[in-house]
């Protein structure tokens, strides 16, 4: 073996390594950027799903925004109250209690008949591109039923039922709003837990038309309008709309609606809230 050639190679490699090492060591000291360690701590607390509900590019972007006081601490809806509380501890600040938010689909029209056969891409957004007929169903306002929202949900909270309608599991839903973004009919909405009365229809078709094609569509009969003691619900352009400024969530409109368009989720939500609170109490004791 040629030891001389080998030693030259080894020696020169070691020399280059040593020089570069020194340069790097000097560089890392010279160009050191001080990262606020709170950014890393906050990022560790955030759920890490990068859903974008806070309006920042991913969890790390939001963490940075919190530390630089660009954003408030309560914007992470998947993390909820617990997350906001932990962030506040790191930041040495107090936060008000965050109320959970849930998504809701404003359509119950699973039985609406079809207008034509469709054999294209099974994606709601693709079904409404110009010229694709605007969805297979007779109602051009309601759910198309190809489950784009279910596929978009990062928490698996949306499933499609046998009528091809999305069902939202509020146990899993964090109110991040991904389903709102992808729905081409703008049917999904995010609202806080305590708001429990909703009109689950968006059809502006005339009452007679809606009556013919949908079992659960607003027919603009105005019974809710007459019944409401607070003047909080009105039929505007053939659709009942609740004015939440005035609404006291009494649920009288729910009882008179002949089509079951208006729903009150108070009972279920109260039960779930109680269960959650008892679980939290047990955890602390």
């Amino acid at each position, binding site marked *: 073996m040629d030891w001389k050639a080998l030693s030259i190679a080894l020696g020169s490699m070691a020399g280059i390594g040593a020089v570069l090492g020194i340069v790097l060591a000097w560089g890392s000291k010279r160009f050191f950027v001080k990262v606020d360690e709170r950014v890393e701590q906050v990022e560790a607390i955030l759920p890490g799903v990068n859903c974008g509900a806070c309006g920042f590019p991913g969890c790390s972007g939001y963490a940075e925004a919190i530390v630089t006081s660009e954003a408030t601490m309560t914007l992470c809806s998947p993390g909820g109250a617990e997350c906001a509380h932990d962030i506040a501890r790191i930041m040495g600040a107090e936060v008000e209690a965050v109320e959970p938010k849930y998504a809701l689909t404003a359509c119950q029209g699973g039985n609406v008949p079809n207008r034509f056969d469709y*054999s294209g891409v099974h994606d709601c*957004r*693709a079904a409404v*591109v*110009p010229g694709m*007929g605007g969805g297979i169903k007779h109602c051009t306002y309601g759910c198309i039923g190809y489950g784009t929202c279910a596929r978009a949900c990062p928490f698996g909270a949306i499933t499609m039922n046998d009528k091809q309608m999305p069902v939202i599991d509020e146990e899993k839903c964090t109110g991040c709003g991904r389903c709102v973004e992808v729905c081409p009919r703008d049917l999904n909405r995010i609202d806080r837990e305590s708001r429990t009365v909703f009109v689950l229809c968006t059809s502006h078709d005339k009452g007679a038309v809606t009556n013919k094609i949908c079992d659960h569509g607003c027919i603009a009969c105005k019974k809710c309008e007459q019944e409401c003691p607070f003047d909080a619900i009105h039929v505007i352009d053939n659709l009942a709309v609740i004015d939440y400024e005035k609404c006291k969530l009494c649920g009288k409109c729910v009882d008179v609606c002949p089509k079951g368009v208006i729903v009150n989720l108070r009972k279920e939500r109260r039960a779930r809230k109680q269960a959650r609170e008892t679980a939290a109490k047990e955890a602390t004791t």
Partner: protein
Amino acid sequence: MAFLKTFKGGVHPPDHKQLSKDAAITEAMVPELLTVPMAQHIGKPAQPVVKVTDEVKRGQVIGESQGFVSANVHSPVSGKVKRITECNTPLGTKTQAILIENDGQDTWAEGCNVESNPENLTPKEIRSRIADAGIVGMGGATFPTHVKLSPPEGKTIDTVLLNGVECEPYLTSDYRLMLESPDTIVKGLQLVMRAVNCNNGYIGVEANKPDAFKIMEKTCKELSSSDARLAAVMLEVKYPQGGEKQLIEAVLNREVPSGRLPMDIGALVQNVGSSHAIYQACYLNRPLTERIVAVTGEAVAEPANLLARIGTPIGDLLRHCRFDEEKAVKLICGGPMMGLAHFDLEMPVNKGMSGLLALTDASDWDFRHCIRCGRCVDGCAAHLLPSELSIIGESGRFLDAEEANVMDCIECGACTYVCPARRPIVQWIKLAKQEIMKERLRKAEQAKAV
């Protein structure tokens, strides 16, 4: 044999034109009740200017153009306004529509249907005549013609191309028009050339219509002069030879740069049907109230080329041609490659409906994964990678599609036609385009808010 002019890419679908190519243009029966949609063009829908129970005359403006990129809508018959309601349109949207009860008199409105000599009209006057007559691109794109004829300051047009290619299978309406009324087409072309102040005019005709080519060539020769040089050009039979950018590439050997318009390279393309309508507007003062529709397909017993009033329900035209409702499985407005499938027989004819097809064979889109065979890449007339675009669209990475130049796609459907995995490529491309447009709108709004 000399090589015929053409573009790079393209496919060869069977043309099926023999069904209706020998049927001379006949007038369709005018129905009792016509539904005139307010959105028959790209741009803002027209606004109704008549009220229920108003008497209207044929050619009277019933929908007024809203802004520059919009078009007037005229009453196709004389009669009474019955209702203002909504209807489905061949563009696949719902729009406001005026229902007119036909009185059978067909009285023209004042000043309409009067012969005049447009020799002394200035370019501006020609443009305003065209705008008043509500003329839009009659090949199917329905882009308002007066907008195309008004290039912005600093851009000059040196060549006008008339599109007599009709590369879509089945369609024969432009072909019949070229055979039966070559003079009006060429005179219309001369008007367009005067409106944009240029001396070169070509008419592109595919080689599968030699009789139409011959007659256009003859007429061009007769009407050609030293300050308006006219010629007919025979082009190779290939789809989409009639695409605006493809026609320019074939005839002038110029390529429209990505994201730009034909006017940026000095070219202007008009359909022969639009040219005919321009002739009627300037020589006869007739607004656009009727068009030729090729009613054909295997489920139609007597295929025909019908001169139909705008607003005639498509069901009437199909029944006129003895259409077999049992046999038909698919109804298409336009050609089979780019046309849209429809379900509503009450839907009215609009300004852009070149064909009405009742087909007996509807493919089922039981699609598979892309096998990267590259047939779509060879066939793509816009020189894109449809296979990549379809995969990007399928996985929902729409912004990546923008980088892959999806916005340059002309949606001709050649890729989908040749795909052996039966992938609905164009639908994914349309989806990606739609999402990109939404994103751009969102960004613009954000920028405005800041």
